[in-house]
C-alpha cells in the first residue's frame, strides 16, 4: 500500500521530543489555553510552537525530509498535547490525519511527493472537508464533483464543518470523481489557500473543543488536476483515514482523561497530607478511576499497535474487512464514553474544587471537551454501522 512508508525514529529521540513537547506545553500551550477556550479562538501561539519543533511534518517519511514518526509515536504526542489544551491536540491530530492520507496514498505522484517535501520546509497546516450538506453526515457519499478541463479542476462544496478552515494552508476535500460519477465514487483533492474561497455558513460557539473553530463553509476552489490524490477515497478511508482518525482522537481523549486523573491525584495527596495516618475517603475513588483509566489506555495502545502492524504487513484486504472496521469503531465508541466516565469520577474526587472554575483542580474544561468525543462523528451513527456489519460477521 505505502510506497512512502514512514520510518520509526529511535526511542531515545522520541523521549527527547516528548520532553520538548512538554516544554512548549508548559511555556506556550497551557498559558494560552484559557483564552483559546474562553474566546473560542484559534490557538495561534500553540500552532506556531508546533511549527518551531517541525511537528507538522512529523509523519512525513525521513527520505522526504520529515521526522518519519509512526502512528504509535504520533498517538503519544496527541496524548501529551491534550494535557495542556484539548483544542490544540485536536487540531494537531486532524492535521496529522490529512498528512497520513497523503503519505500513504500519494504514491507515484510527483506532485504529492514534492508537496510533502515543501510541507517539511514550510510547516503547512492542512484542514479537512469531508461531510457535506445534504448527505446526512455520510462520508462515503458526495454531492459535489471535481470538474476537470485542460488539466485544471473546479470544485464547489457546501461543507457543514471545516475545522480551522480559515487558518489552514491547504484543505483536503472529498468529492465525486466527476460530474457523472456515482455518489460513492469519490476522490480527495488537496486545495490551496490561494486558490480557494471560503464563505462562512455558520459560527462555532460550542460547549467544548472551542479552539478548533469548526465553522461551516461554502468552499470554491480551482487548481491543477495533479492535486487529486491518485487513489479512490474508499481505499483511503478504510486503510488510513478511518483507523488513523480514531487512533489520534482516542489518544488525545486519553490525554484529557489522564490529566483529569492527575488533578484528582494531586487533590487526594493534599487530603492525605492533612491527615497522614488515615487515607482519605477519596483515595478509594482514585483507586477506582485508575482502573478505568488503565483500561482505556490499554484499549488505545492495543488497537494502535495492531494498526501499526497491519501497516507494516501492507495487507490491503485486512483493512477492508468488516472485522477491522468494527474494531476501529469500537475504539471510538469505548474511548469516547470512557473519557466522560473518567472525568466525572475525577470531579467527584476533587469535589467542589473540581467544580469551581477558579481552582487549580478545576475540571470544567475537561468535562466540556469530554462530551464532544461521543458527538463528533456521532456514536449513534457508528453504532448503526457496526450493527449492520455485525449482521454479516459470523465469528467474533
Amino acid at each position, binding site marked *: 500500500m505505502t510506497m512512502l512508508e514512514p520510518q520509526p525514529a529511535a526511542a531515545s529521540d522520541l523521549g527527547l521530543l516528548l520532553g520538548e513537547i512538554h516544554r512548549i506545553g508548559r511555556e506556550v500551550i497551557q498559558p494560552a489555553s484559557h483564552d483559546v477556550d474562553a474566546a473560542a479562538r484559534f490557538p495561534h501561539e500553540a500552532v506556531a510552537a508546533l511549527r518551531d519543533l517541525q511537528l507538522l511534518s512529523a509523519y512525513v517519511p525521513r527520505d522526504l525530509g520529515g521526522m518519519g514518526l509512526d502512528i504509535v509515536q504520533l498517538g503519544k504526542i496527541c496524548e501529551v498535547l491534550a494535557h495542556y489544551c484539548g483544542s490544540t491536540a485536536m487540531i494537531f491530530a486532524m492535521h496529522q490525519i490529512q498528512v497520513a492520507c497523503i503519505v500513504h496514498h500519494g504514491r507515484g505522484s510527483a506532485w504529492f511527493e514534492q508537496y510533502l517535501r515543501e510541507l517539511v520546509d514550510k510547516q503547512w497546516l492542512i484542514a479537512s472537508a469531508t461531510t457535506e450538506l445534504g448527505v446526512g453526515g455520510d462520508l462515503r457519499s458526495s454531492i459535489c464533483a471535481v470538474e476537470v478541463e485542460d488539466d485544471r479542476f473546479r470544485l464547489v462544496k457546501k461543507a457543514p464543518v471545516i475545522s480551522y478552515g480559515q487558518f489552514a494552508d491547504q484543505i483536503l476535500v472529498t468529492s465525486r470523481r466527476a460530474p457523472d460519477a456515482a455518489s460513492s465514487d469519490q476522490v480527495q483533492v488537496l486545495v490551496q489557500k490561494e486558490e480557494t474561497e471560503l464563505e462562512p455558513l455558520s459560527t462555532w460557539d460550542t460547549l467544548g473543543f472551542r479552539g478548533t473553530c469548526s465553522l461551516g463553509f461554502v468552499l470554491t476552489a480551482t487548481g491543477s488536476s495533479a492535486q487529486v490524490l491518485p487513489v479512490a477515497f474508499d481505499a483511503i478511508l478504510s486503510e488510513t483515514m478511518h483507523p488513523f482518525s480514531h487512533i489520534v482522537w482516542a489518544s488525545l481523549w486519553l490525554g484529557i482523561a489522564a490529566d483529569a486523573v492527575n488533578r484528582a491525584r494531586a487533590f487526594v495527596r493534599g487530603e492525605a497530607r492533612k491527615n497522614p495516618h488515615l487515607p482519605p475517603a477519596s483515595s478509594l475513588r482514585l483507586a477506582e478511576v485508575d482502573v478505568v483509566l488503565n483500561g482505556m489506555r490499554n484499549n488505545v495502545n492495543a488497537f494502535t499497535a495492531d494498526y501499526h502492524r497491519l501497516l507494516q504487513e501492507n495487507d490491503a484486504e485486512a483493512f477492508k474487512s468488516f472485522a477491522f472496521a468494527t474494531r476501529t469503531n469500537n475504539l471510538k465508541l469505548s474511548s469516547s464514553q470512557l473519557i466522560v466516565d473518567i472525568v466525572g469520577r475525577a470531579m467527584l474526587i476533587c469535589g467542589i474544587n473540581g467544580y469551581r472554575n477558579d481552582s487549580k483542580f478545576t475540571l470544567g474544561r475537561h468535562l466540556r471537551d469530554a462530551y464532544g468525543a461521543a458527538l463528533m462523528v456521532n456514536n449513534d451513527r457508528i453504532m448503526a454501522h457496526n450493527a449492520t456489519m455485525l449482521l*454479516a460477521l459470523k465469528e467474533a
Partner: protein
Amino acid sequence: MLLEKVREIVAQHGRLGTPVAQLTDESDLYEAGLTSLATVGLMLALEDGFDIEFPDNMLSRKTFGSIGSLAAAVEQLTARAAV
C-alpha cells in the same frame, strides 16, 4: 438461471446508482455505486434466496465485485451445501 436470480437480488438489494440492466456480469459493482454497508443487505438477501451462508473469508471485495463473481460464490456455496 442462477445468474438471473443473482441479478434480480442485486437489483433489489444492491442500492446501486446504475440500473442493473445496464451492467454486464463483469461490470464493477463498486463503480456502479455499491458501498461496503450495502453489501450486508445484499449478502443477507443472497443467503435467504439460495439458503446458504457466506463464511467470513468470502466477505471481500473480490466476492462482491461483480454479478459474475457473486454468482460464482453462490454456486460454490450451494455445491458445498449439497455435499
